[in-house]
């Protein structure tokens, strides 16, 4: 076969397969929404999943947020003092966390911590025929397995991002006020004046909600679509992290563009 033709053919196959997967993932997403009523009838399952995906992710979120906040405090102070506005450190830390780092880093950590667990769990359930068994018992796996995990992820993400931002501000405060010696009052009052609830806090929450939908559905789809073998599940788990991370970063740019434009 002509090498150029072969390259084009491979490229075409890759593109077709990506579009196919995007379509399947969208279909799963829509089915999950359609079956949400049935999922919410079993609300205890969603609560249980919130514990596994949300509560169990708290440690990594809190520890990361604290260090990110401290680094922001240090770097921010170093830069701001050159312009003689080191009192604005509180604003810098809060805005960076609320608008960007809170939602984005939380989503990346969520994809690594909870997303991989979801993919591996569902992939293994498929490999051990648990999903087929459920289907044969006339119980929809989308209502019983996918739905509760989806809503747990969507509910957990904005809460985790809020906790991330709060703990990050604490970390920034610890470095800026007790260690470096920035004025305590200036730190909080500047933040109070310059952080807008609608444009900073709510926009950050909207971002984390969108990231929650994206990361959770990617993790669920990868698990649901994984070939039922050890290699298949391992590849699906890797794909969850890669796809979620890239999607979060891409979506962040798009959302930020819209938010700044308005």
């Amino acid at each position, binding site marked *: 076969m002509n090498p150029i033709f072969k390259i084009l053919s491979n490229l075409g196959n890759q593109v077709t397969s990506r579009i196919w997967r995007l379509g399947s993932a969208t279909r799963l997403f829509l089915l999950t929404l359609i079956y949400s009523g049935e999922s919410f009838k079993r609300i205890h399952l969603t609560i249980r999943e919130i514990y596994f995906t949300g509560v169990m992710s708290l440690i990594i979120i809190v520890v990361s947020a604290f260090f990110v906040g401290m680094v922001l405090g240090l770097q921010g102070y170093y830069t701001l003092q050159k312009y003689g506005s080191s009192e604005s450190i509180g604003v810098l830390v809060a805005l960076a966390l609320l608008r960007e780092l809170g939602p984005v880093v939380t989503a990346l950590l969520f994809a690594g911590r909870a997303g991989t667990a979801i993919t591996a769990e569902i992939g293994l*359930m498929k490999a*051990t025929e*648990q999903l*087929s*068994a459920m*289907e*044969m*018992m*006339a*119980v929809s796996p989308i209502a019983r397995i996918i739905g509760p995990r989806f809503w747990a992820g969507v509910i957990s993400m904005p809460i985790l991002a809020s906790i991330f931002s709060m703990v990050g501000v604490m970390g920034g405060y610890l470095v800026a006020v007790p260690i470096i010696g920035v004025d305590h009052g200036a730190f909080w009052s500047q933040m109070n004046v310059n952080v807008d609830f609608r444009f900073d806090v709510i926009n950050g929450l909207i971002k984390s909600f969108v990231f929650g939908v994206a990361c959770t559905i990617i993790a669920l789809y990868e698990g649901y679509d994984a070939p039922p073998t050890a290699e298949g599940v391992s590849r699906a788990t890797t794909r969850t992290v890669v796809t979620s991370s890239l999607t979060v970063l891409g979506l962040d740019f798009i959302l930020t563009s819209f938010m700044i434009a308005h």
Partner: protein
Amino acid sequence: MTQKNIVEIKNLSFGYGNRMLHKDINMVFPRGKVTAIMGGSGCGKTTILRLIGGQIKPKAGQVTVDGKIVHKQDRQGIYELRRKMGMLFQHGALFTDLSVFDNVAFPMREHTKLPESMIRDLVLMKLNAVGLRGAHKLMSTELSGGMARRVALARAIALDPDIIMYDEPFAGLDPISMAVICDLIRTLNDALGATSIIVTHDVEEAFSFADYIYFVADGTVAAEGTPKELSKSKLPFVHQFVHGEKDGPVPFHYNAPSYKKDIYESA
């Protein structure tokens, strides 16, 4: 009107892509009987169970369950048919996050509004039938292969199904567990007045309890009959299978060019 045959397969063809797995298969499964489907690995025995359960659709022909054509049912219709079926998967397919008790209670909780006290009694009765009432508090991950298979059987019969399907119920079991499962299949079938369909390649076990046997080979029904008829069969495939001969109509070697040619080409 009650059909004589609870499941009927008529002129069924099925395949993946261009590769046909089944060609024009006909089978009937009479009520109250234990019917075995036998054949070599990869001949599509399990696929027949999946076609009966409506998990996949045939390319041609049809499967009817209780007079209803399976692939023409909508989701609701298929789920209604599945409520009449119980299926034992090859490795049990127990839900690993649930205990033995909760696994057996699962279909009852999903499909009935029975009070928890009654579910408890029913679950213990089902587990007692498979000899594992004492294990109801264990997690499914704590069970041996044979025990997991028995719990899965208790779950399959949780709603007293009309049809019980078994996918390789003896695979990987020790002789004692095998004998227990063998005995349970016949006992439960007769006690529940159900119809059993068993996919297996274990000749001795299938011949000991089945009322009727279908042999599947090359995508078609190669032979059928009662165990007595088949054990006397002179058909080369049946003879090879029943006596476990390594060569015959099913060749020992996978399709390959001549040995000599392969060796010389690689030299």
